[in-house]
């Protein structure tokens, strides 16, 4: 029997097509909160917040660090336009750790303006997502 509860998922980054295939469910974090998408979701455009993207298809579960971009949910198709998206094995843990330390230091420093604080916060969140995912896959 053909599996009818899957939808077409495409994740595109500026450099490549990151993922293209069927999925039963995806879970990710948007600026408005965590969402899960099944087939037949209402059409929706949302902005991605740094978080772990979980792609479920039957027994197979894939995870990736989705850091920024936006997504468009259509009737039977989901397109994620990601500015950066990485599989766990592609994550450079050392770099993420360094970025985390750097961002934390910047947040402690009081002299910087508001823009820098938001930027450092974003950087911190990105590095935390990367580290979390890398640790989860046991590296």
């Amino acid at each position, binding site marked *: 029997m053909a599996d009818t509860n899957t939808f077409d998922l495409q994740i*595109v980054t500026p450099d490549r097509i990151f993922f293209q295939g069927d999925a039963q469910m995806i879970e990710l974090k948007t600026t408005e909160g965590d969402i899960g998408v099944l087939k037949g979701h209402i*059409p*929706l*455009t949302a902005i991605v917040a740094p978080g772990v993207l979980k792609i479920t298809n039957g027994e197979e579960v894939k995870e990736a660090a989705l850091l920024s971009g936006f997504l468009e949910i259509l009737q039977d198709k989901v397109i994620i336009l990601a*500015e*950066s998206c990485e599989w766990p094995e592609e994550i450079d843990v050392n770099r993420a750790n360094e970025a985390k330390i750097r961002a934390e230091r910047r947040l402690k420093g009081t002299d910087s303006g508001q823009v820098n604080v938001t930027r450092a916060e974003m950087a911190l969140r990105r590095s935390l997502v990367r580290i979390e995912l890398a640790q989860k896959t046991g590296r």
Partner: protein
Amino acid sequence: MASMREIKRRKGSIQSTQQITKAMKLVSTVKLQRAKGRAESSKPYFDYMYDTVSSMLAKSGNISHPYLQAGDSPKKAIIVITSNRGLAGGYNSNITKLVRNSDIKKEDAVIYAIGRKGRDSLARYGYEIKADYSEVINDPMYKDAAEIGAAVLEAFSNNEVGEIYLAYTRFKNTVSHIPTMIKLLPVDSTMAKKDEDQEQSSEAKTIEELTLMNYEPEAEEALDMIIPKYMNSLIYGALVEALASENGARMQAMDSATNNAEDMISDLTLSYNRARQSSITQELTEIVAGASAIN
């Protein structure tokens, strides 16, 4: 007729030039392949980005948003993408020409230069160069595009410039590169970039238009975040295409230079042989004349 030795020296010099142009051609062929692959693998992202933004604007037609209206400032920012190195035929001068022949007056233009060649020649014509990102073109990364995008967007929000344009060379295929100027901001609701490659997606678009899209956050807020991304992706796309065009243009220029050298060498070989023959003939005549004088 030039002396044999002179011709020979000239031939040698052209031959070594030909070796250089040949080598440069090979190098740019390899670079072109890489740049082309990159441009192609990044294409889907821009197509989707374009589709999404245009369908968003089509559906939310009459919202007013700062990014959709020209600023009050008469100044116009132009991001000009050229190369850092010359010897690429008309590649760089075509872009400069495009900027100079555009409707934008010199006094109103604020140049954000990517590529030394374009920056230098525009500066020579008296354009105001606001910023220079020339290192970027050697190896464009999305991060660079985002940085440039942020800089021009800031100028736009601060009302330093009223409109933002992007001048680059479109990579249509290996042999044809089209100097193009597009308007980045304010985003035209009836976007001008209608192309042959855009038509294929029109079918899909009509289906999309029938479904009512929800925005989370609200459309205005979503536009706020998506339009900068849209701009960055256009800039990045322009960078990778320009890089491919540059190498394509250089490959062509070097190819014709090699061919010209070939032609010149064959001409010189001919005149060298003629000179050689005539000198031998002359020597023979002299010997014969000398011999007959003794007898």
